[in-house]
């Protein structure tokens, strides 16, 4: 059986940057709607620790705030290959491209999961604070349904 994880990334002190973590918590609460045997991982604000998480799994779903010039709260789905080939013109994740580099490193070290799927949500405000923007909070429920649907089809 393929080992699967959903990893949320974000800094809960930087407003909309916490989206990945909020979605992770919400998905955990909807476990029964998802396939069995999925690990839920709070990846925090990223960094090298993600390299170790990636090495442990065959399929990884990433939830993260991603700056791609969309509307606040808009969900964009993409795959590892699109990032590695840099086909996507976005700042992948709001963590100084850390995660992009970690994926590249994981690939170079031959530890990369077979599949990495990324759910990126366009943030609005990334200043200090624990509250997320209103437009974003309104989009969460809809995004959650789409994410669950996608995971069910891909797992």
């Amino acid at each position, binding site marked *: 059986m393929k080992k699967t994880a959903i990893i949320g990334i974000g800094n809960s002190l930087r407003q909309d940057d916490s989206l990945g973590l909020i979605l992770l918590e919400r998905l955990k609460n909807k476990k029964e709607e998802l396939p069995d045997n999925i690990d839920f991982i709070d990846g925090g604000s990223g960094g090298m620790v993600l390299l*170790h998480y990636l090495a442990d799994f065959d399929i990884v779903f990433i939830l993260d705030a991603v700056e791609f010039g969309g509307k606040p709260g808009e969900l964009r789905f993409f795959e590892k290959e699109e990032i590695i080939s840099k086909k996507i013109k976005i700042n992948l994740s709001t963590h100084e491209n850390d995660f992009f*580099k970690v994926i590249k*490193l994981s690939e*170079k*070290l031959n530890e990369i999961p077979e599949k990495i799927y990324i759910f990126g949500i366009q943030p609005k405000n990334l200043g200090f604070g624990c509250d997320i923007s209103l437009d974003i909070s309104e989009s969460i429920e809809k995004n959650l349904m789409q994410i669950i649907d996608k995971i069910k089809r891909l797992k």
Partner: protein
Amino acid sequence: MSKDVSINVHHITRVEGHGNIVLDVKKGEINKIQWQVPEAPRFFEAMLRGRHYDELRTITSRICGICSIGHSLASLKATEDAMDVKISKQTDILRHLAINGENMQSHILHVGYLAAPDLFGVGSVFPLASSKSKDALLEIVKLHRFANEFSELICGRTTHPIRLVVGGFTMLPTKKQLEKLRERFVENLDRTKKVAEVILTVADKLPNFTRETEYIGLTSKEEYAFYEGKIASTDTGVLEDSNDYKEMMQEYVVPQSTAKYAKNNRKSYMVGALARYNLNSKQLEPEAKKVADMFGLKPICYNPYMNNIAQLVEYVHNIEDSIKWIDVMLDKGIKQEQPQNIKIKEGRGVGVVEVPRGILVHDYTINKDGNCTKANCIIPTNQNHANIQHDMEELVPQVLDKSEKEIELTLEMLVRAYDPCISCSTHYLDVKFL
């Protein structure tokens, strides 16, 4: 020589937190050399006031994302000292393992990811994956992963431990887990030696700079001290009572830094792996001694750049030491101890441990209700700032004939050698405006 040099490294990379290097040389005259710390203070000591004794560990763990186990242990020791709580031998062993785990995590992260790029002549760890050093990097990643998993097994989490509480542990590893862990230690001892051999091939990139200074750390008759011991200095010897730590760690404030400076016998001193090595090298385990010999490390070593090598030596020591402790636990059998019922008692307590970057002190006063009324934390990097500044002052005239780029790299490597954890070291400053 009449050259101009202007270096302004605004936020040096590959260190924890924010620090600046400023060098201004006009016609060969040095006008300014400064190691600056611009981080904001974090008020942790003030946060502890009024908090119940069983919250202190959880709060202080958050001072650092790297030394969270060490802060937890210093906090527990201070709390237990204040309230006269005794711990079992098994708890003592598990805490020795916990501190080894943290030291391993932090040292390999620093040597492998933050310092090694300088030795291999690249800007960060990422290009190493595309170089001929790829295999060595993979081994370093595995050593880091192992240290993380070891910490998780003992502490319940890699960072911000949850099993460590006042008086004991909330959950214990099983016999089977310890047996498996022991096997992995043996395998990783070989791996570490291989990594050391690769680092040796580039160790000549470490500048050969020495400046006599004082080294302070814990020392113990029983062991190479991390968890237990007395505060000692290479200049002034052993301090008999740790409650008097302020006699040896005299903190003061300078305008260029939001973090405090510290001194004892001289104008500055150094703490960390090299300080521990200089004080306690005779107590290293055999394989660790061999790695020290490989690099020609001998006490007293006055070259701050060799702190990187002392960290590597300590990683090996932590492995050998952990195997010994695991053997004791497996031999005696794991007792299913429950955390004890704590009787509140008022008093003052001091907890001192060695964390990756040096000696750490927590000092608490607890009242009859079990609440903290006063707290002081002395952070390792605070104690190193003055020494970094004085090293720079002595180093710059020796390297002024090099290019500006080379001088900058030499100074950056100096700061990185101390493995500073700058955010942790910024303190509340008592300032009066006149």
